[in-house]
């Protein structure tokens, strides 16, 4: 029996297949047919019932069932024969001369790099956590190149190797390992990691989502200056119990947003600036204030945000299906059945909003009203 999950959302169904770890949005009647196919009912019997139900010919019904089976069920129930992770032959270079120490949730991490470029991939976001204390090291990362791949080793164990085009996965895995270490939870205990900013007020969080360049991080920094607590920027971990955890990396502020934030954060004027040539972007990092590693609180709503100079302020409830379409491809969601079920259950109860603004005051008020159930 193939493992799958199903959830009705709005007027459609979402079906999750374990074998492919895919989420499929389809008509409820199509989801029922998929269930019947997965329950090993014969195609003839399924088609016959369908023909009667829709008053169509057996031939038409058979075509529909075959189409769903061939295009949807079969491709998503065959376990992807992923290339096994090859532990490539590598030798840790003896000259990992660039060393940094970070203090995160009372743990000291030592990170050794073979060259300055590798250091530049990780250090800027964690620079504010650097410590001179290096007597008791809890974990040691080693970063080096071998066979044209960047390698990551943690406490002597090979974690992975990535091509240059997949650098964001190398950086993501480094962040994930930090999270696993500081919260003593392995990867299977996390429901997912979301490409969002997380903001806290009292004992709840709101996730701020949106495409890159929409202003997630700037909105987060503005909200932090208003007394909301920054929980995470860019990388939001949520565990199986559906609680959001703090991730203390710096908030990336694009050059064009610096002037907007100088009033609240005067030190940004002299902060180190990093130029990402590949994307023609220049950013500075803003350390999050009052990171609380003990705060594990639920998420109250998803807000898809967009800064738009031509629009003063607009907020509306968003179609859950549209939100789902935006959320899933941009997230890492654990492929275990338990976590996928937790994710669907979590999403089902999550209100989703679309917020477009250029008026900061109205944006703060709207976020506060969502927190206080007044919207």
């Amino acid at each position: 029996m193939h493992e799958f999950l199903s959830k009705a959302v709005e007027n459609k169904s979402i079906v999750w297949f374990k074998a492919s770890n895919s989420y499929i949005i389809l008509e409820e009647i199509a989801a029922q047919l998929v269930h019947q196919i997965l329950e090993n009912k014969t195609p003839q019997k399924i088609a016959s019932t369908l023909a009667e139900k829709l008053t169509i010919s057996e031939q038409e019904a058979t075509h529909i069932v075959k189409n769903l089976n061939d295009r949807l069920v079969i491709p998503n129930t065959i376990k992807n024969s992923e290339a096994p992770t090859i532990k490539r032959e590598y030798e840790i270079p003896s000259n990992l001369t660039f060393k940094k120490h970070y203090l995160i949730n009372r743990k000291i991490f030592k990170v050794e790099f073979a060259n300055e470029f590798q250091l530049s991939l990780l250090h800027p976001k964690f620079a504010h956590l650097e410590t001179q204390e290096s007597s008791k090291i809890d974990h040691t990362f080693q970063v080096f190149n071998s066979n044209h791949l960047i390698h990551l080793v943690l406490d002597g164990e090979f974690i992975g190797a990535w091509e240059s085009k997949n650098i964001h996965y190398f950086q993501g895995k480094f962040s994930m390992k930090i999270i696993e270490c500081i919260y003593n939870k392995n990867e299977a205990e996390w429901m997912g990691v979301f490409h969002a900013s997380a903001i806290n007020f009292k004992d709840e969080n709101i996730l701020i989502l949106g495409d890159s360049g929409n202003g997630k991080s700037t909105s987060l920094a503005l909200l932090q200056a208003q007394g909301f607590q920054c929980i995470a920027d860019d990388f939001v971990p949520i565990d199986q119990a559906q609680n959001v955890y703090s991730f203390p990396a710096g908030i990336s502020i694009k050059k064009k947003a610096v002037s907007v934030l100088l009033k609240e954060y005067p030190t940004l004027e002299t902060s180190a600036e990093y130029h990402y040539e590949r994307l023609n972007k220049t950013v500075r990092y803003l350390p999050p204030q009052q990171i609380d590693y003990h705060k594990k609180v639920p998420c109250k709503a998803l807000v898809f945000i967009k800064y738009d100079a031509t629009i003063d302020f607009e907020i509306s409830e968003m179609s859950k299906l549209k939100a789902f379409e935006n959320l899933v491809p941009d997230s890492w969601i654990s492929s275990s059945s338990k976590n996928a079920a937790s994710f669907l259950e979590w999403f089902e109860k999550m209100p989703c909003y679309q917020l477009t603004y250029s008026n900061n005051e109205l944006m703060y008020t709207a976020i506060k009203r969502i927190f206080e159930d007044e919207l």
Partner: protein
Amino acid sequence: MKSKNPQNDNVSDEITISRKEALKKIGKYGKYTALTAIGTFIILHPKKAQATSVDHSGLITPDANGFFD
């Protein structure tokens, strides 16, 4: 039932059908729309691994500078 076009005799005759027949035809097309919808779906794949936003990638183009060699 057929009726002649009163505006232009050169234009071919229009076909008029009864309300009942029209509803039947619409119903048929509605049915096909519904059948098409059954076969229409969106497949969403989450990321295979944790990733940072791509705008944190590389201060410099690594390949061009030989850092991965």
